[in-house]
């Protein structure tokens, strides 16, 4: 204030005296000084960040080997927050320079995030960009051992006080006593998500009933078997785990009838063969009651399922499945998605020209008798007249959408087909009538994925509007809206017991939702890029997820821990499928490969040392089956364990 007064007085004095030149010179000098000051101040700030960070960096890189990897974890959050601090304070140029100087240190681990953050060019962007906002709002959690933490504190207090602010503001240290964690623990992968880890922990502590539905067809099948043939019942091995599981699940899901039945089984099973014990992994899982009202199965369908189950090929690491490949030709890059019915007889493709095409493979096999077989064909009775004018085409064309179709899904018995499109709608088609039945509107943005539930009737959708929704066929409004993902929900999959759905998102997380309550029941953090495909093992305990980079991660649903991240493919994993006993996992990718993974060995290892959290066990690659420049869009195990794959032949790439 005083300065200003003096200045004014001086200026007034000069003006009064008419010393104009002197006044100008003074003003000029003043302005120069002030700009200098501001400039030097900005220089100072930038330099402080620059120096502070580079000092911390060189210190971390020169630290003791056994603690180095822990200390290096600190660098990345410090780096991005320094950058964002600079941006926030408006030093755009300096921020850029800073970013580019140290960028490559982190490119290997966090390339995608860096690419996004690079786009931040003004303080307002920080507010706008979800990732940046998320990072600013949440603290990063880093686990350090006691000694590393001590080292870090020592260094910061002595040499790099500038960084103290950044670290204090954005990093939560979780100090663990004892030895530093091993490098193989992928701490960096989770370091970014920070506070969401708390959320994750909180969510993942919820109770989860991952068991299978009681009174499922498989169970009835086995029951029927044991009734019809007393010698051919389940082995005694199978009885025991069921007993164990009953204890585990607090008995609240086990009806008296079930335990009665089991006793009977056990009695007979004591002398029974052990051959079935290995294969009936499905029945090992605990039973849960369905929280949804489930549709009744027509008896003839049930019979056909029985037949399929009886003829199921047993698969394991030694007996690999046969793979039949459906190649879409002449798609002109228009095929967006495909689906295969449960028995592989129907194949559907969703196209970017908003059409859906359905091929009946049984008919294609015998083109001469096409007209005859229509009459005979169980599913074709109703459409006889319709088919006659479309006889020229080998497929049935379903038109109705007004934008690219992003997913198609068959109902469990292939009588209905769902398609979701970028026109924000989901359409239900009848494969018998080849006609559109319902158009479901509810999403506000393109619907990326739609999946029928394992029992039919219900379906789940995932959309760009960051929600997943659960619908029933008879209502045009969704039954549940699952909101919580921070970015697009890219894929959705049902749990075999229909009480849960899992969703994969562009925010690199997978969530498990309780269908009844609509709440998030599990949060799985570990992917480094958008999650593209999901599959849940038939016993309902494990989940596999594949992402854009080709990584496949197995998760234990009950604990929420990842079992084994592997770089399964070189490119996007479009599809995953478990074999019917859950012994094999098949993955299909944009790198034109179908790969078969051994699930049993890695899972066994997990079951034995459940207490040890280390993701030591990994999926074992059993077989890689390359295709001829055909990216694999879809994989499906039939009930008889034949694997169907579908993909579009890509020409000239």
């Amino acid at each position, binding site marked *: 204030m005083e300065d200003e007064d003096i200045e004014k007085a001086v200026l007034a004095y000069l003006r009064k005296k008419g010393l104009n030149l002197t006044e100008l010179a003074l003003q000029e000098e003043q302005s120069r000084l002030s700009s200098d000051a501001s400039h030097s101040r900005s220089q100072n700030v930038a330099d402080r960040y620059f120096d502070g960070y580079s000092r911390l960096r060189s210190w971390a890189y020169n630290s003791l080997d056994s603690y180095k990897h822990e200390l290096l974890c600190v660098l990345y959050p410090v780096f991005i927050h320094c950058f964002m601090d600079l941006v926030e304070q408006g030093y*755009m140029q300096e921020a*850029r320079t800073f970013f580019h100087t140290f960028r490559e240190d982190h490119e290997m681990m966090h390339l995608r995030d860096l690419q996004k953050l*690079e*786009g*931040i*060019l*003004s303080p307002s962007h920080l507010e*706008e960009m979800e990732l940046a906002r998320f990072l600013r709002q949440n603290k990063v959690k880093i686990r350090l051992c006691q000694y590393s933490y001590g080292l870090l504190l020592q260094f910061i207090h002595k040499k790099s006080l500038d960084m103290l602010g950044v670290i204090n503001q954005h990093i939560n240290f979780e100090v663990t006593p004892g030895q530093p964690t091993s490098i193989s623990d992928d701490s960096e992968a989770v370091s970014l998500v920070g506070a969401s880890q708390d959320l994750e922990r909180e969510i993942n502590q919820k109770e989860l009933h991952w068991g299978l539905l009681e009174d499922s067809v498989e169970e009835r099948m086995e029951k029927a078997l044991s009734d019809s043939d007393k010698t051919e019942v389940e082995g005694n091995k199978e009885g025991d785990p069921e007993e164990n599981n009953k204890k585990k699940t607090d008995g609240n899901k086990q009806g008296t009838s079930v335990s009665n039945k089991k006793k009977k089984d056990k009695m007979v099973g004591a002398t029974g063969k052990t051959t079935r014990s290995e294969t009936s992994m499905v029945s090992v899982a605990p039973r849960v009651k369905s929280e949804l009202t489930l549709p009744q199965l027509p008896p003839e369908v049930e019979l056909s399922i029985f037949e399929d189950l009886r003829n199921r090929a047993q698969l394991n690491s030694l*007996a*690999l*499945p*046969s*793979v*039949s*490949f*459906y*190649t*879409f*030709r*002449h*798609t002109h*890059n*228009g*095929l*967006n*998605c495909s689906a295969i019915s449960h028995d592989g007889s129907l*194949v559907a*493709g969703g*196209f*970017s020209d908003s059409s859906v095409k359905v091929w009946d*493979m049984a008919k*294609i096999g015998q083109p001469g008798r096409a007209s005859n077989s229509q009459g005979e064909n169980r599913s074709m009775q109703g459409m006889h007249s319709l088919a006659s004018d479309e006889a020229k085409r*080998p*497929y049935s064309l379903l038109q109705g959408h007004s*934008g*690219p179709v*992003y997913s198609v899904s068959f109902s469990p018995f292939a009588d209905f087909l769902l398609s979701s499109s*970028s026109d924000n709608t989901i359409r239900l088609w009848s494969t018998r009538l080849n006609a559109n039945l319902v158009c479901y509107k509810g999403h506000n*943005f*393109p619907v*990326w994925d739609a999946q029928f539930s394992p029992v039919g009737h219900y379906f789940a959708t995932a959309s*760009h509007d960051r929600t997943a929704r659960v619908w029933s066929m008879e209502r045009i409004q969704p039954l549940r809206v699952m909101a919580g993902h921070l970015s*697009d929900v*890219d894929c959705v999959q049902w749990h075999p017991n229909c009480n849960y759905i899992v969703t994969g998102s*562009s925010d690199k997380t997978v969530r498990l939702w309780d269908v009844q309550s609509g709440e998030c029941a599990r949060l799985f953090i570990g992917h480094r890029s*958008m999650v593209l495909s999901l599959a849940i093992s038939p016993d309902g305990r494990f989940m596999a997820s594949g992402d854009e980079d080709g990584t496949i991660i197995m998760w234990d649903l009950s604990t929420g821990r990842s079992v084994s991240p592997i770089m399964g493919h070189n*490119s*996007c994993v*479009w599809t995953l499928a478990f074999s019917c006993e859950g012994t094999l996992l098949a993955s299909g990718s*944009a790198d034109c490969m*179908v790969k*078969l993974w051994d699930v049993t060995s890695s899972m066994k290892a997990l079951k034995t040392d459940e207490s040890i959290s280390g993701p030591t066990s990994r999926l074992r690659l059993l*077989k890689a*089956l*390359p*295709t*001829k420049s055909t*990216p694999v*869009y879809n994989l499906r195990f039939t009930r008889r364990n034949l694997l169907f794959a579908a993909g579009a032949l890509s020409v000239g*790439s």
Partner: protein
Amino acid sequence: MSIVPKETIEVIAQSIGIPNLSPDVALALAPDVEYRLREIIQEAIKCMRHSKRTVLTTDDMDSALNLRNIEPIYGFASGDPLKFKRAIGHKDLFYLDDREVDFKEVIDAPLPKAPLDTAVVTHWLAIEGVQPAIPENPPIEAIVAPQDGKKMDHGKDDLPVDLKLPIKHVLSRELQLYFDKIGELILLRPETALFKEALLSLAKDSGLHPLVPYFSYFIADEVSRNLSNLSILFALMRVLKSLLSNPHIHIEPYLHQMMPSIITCLVAKRVGEQVSDNHWAIRDFAAKLVASICRRYGHVYHNLQSRLTKTLIHAFLDPSKALTQHYGAIRGLSALGPSVVRLLILPNLETYMQLLEPEMQLEKQKNELKRKEACRVYGSLLLAAGSCLYDRLRLFPGLLSPPDRQPWKTNKKIALTHLPKNKRKASSTLNSHQPPTKKLAVDPTGANSQFPSTDGPATSSSSGSNPNHHHSHNSSNNNSSNAGNTTNTNTNINNATGGGVHAQRVSGSAVLRQAWKEDMDAGHLLSSLHSLFGEGIFSFIQPAEMHCFI
């Protein structure tokens, strides 16, 4: 500061009708433009992923713009990726080649072909985890590790195509020229003196080894192609012979490629263009070649000879095969040595003769050509049997000297076991030989036709011709006894076809009896052969032995 320079903003502003944008505004806008661009690209990438693609297209950009409720950019929709061209003189300035198109051109142009409709085809990607080698699946080489691939190549060694590839690089220009020249000679001028020189060179030059696979392939190829061209076949066989005789060439690994073509030459149904061609010569040549190979490599490849004889005897015993093929088979077998003849031809001789005879008779076989062929076959049989007989008899050089008996006893025993078979064999074998040995076709046929009934005149007539032959060699025995003996044996044999032991004992002198006792098999052989061929067989018997038998 941002990657979008403020000049760009100014240019864009001008293009949408804001002529004087203040630099401050441009500077402020530039970072935001970049941010929005990134945002849209991020959305476009999502659309790309959900279209299951890995290449960003203009459609993705359009749908990303749609997502943001922005008017898409029109005019760039295209199925193909856009082709950017570099502006000349600028390092990193690119532009889209956007040609002006005349409306008239578009209208006048014929309608483009309708694109093929989408179709689904199915194939087995794997059967129980194993990928079948079908065209729909990628080639296996792409999958397996390199060392496995090498192994496979090695396994396919017999496919000449595979061989050529790796060797091509090693082959020097000179060798290539040499190979081309030889090939040309074989195919175009097999009669010239130059070709003979070439054969010599092939038989003697060292350093030809790299060419062996080529030659073997070339020969196999050309033989199958030129079956109707005798001169080329002959040339090829000669080349083979030269190669086989070249001491510097390690030809063994390629034998399996060469054998089929030689055998083809030997037993092919038709060789040469016209029936009048002298295909007998090439069969003879091939037979010798086969035999020489067997002699040379038989001990290395134990099954070589057995496989060969199997093939030949098969051809020989199949009555549906042509006579020419029989001829080849007989020649081949007889070239392999008398023991082969004795074991394989002689047992079948009698039955075969019954087949052959009608073919040779003027009345029964009207076709002159067929009859000639039959005579040829007869001649070959006679030769084979005769040489076999000769070989047998030669084992008893001191037939007359008692001290030598001992070693033969063992011999006899072995032979005795074969005896019944041998006889029959012998009887059928000999038939074919007469024509080549005697140019008079009528005479032997006559003898033959009479043979089963054993007419006196026939024997006498044949003996009349034969004795002369023997006399020239024979000085110690007199003519008459010889002739008498002949008739005697003849009649004896004929009376007791098969087990004529008694007959012989009765008729022979003391010495002769001794001989029969000692060497019954030889005697039987002779007798049965004689019964089938008449005197034609005697030309194969050494005078001395002849004498003791007769």
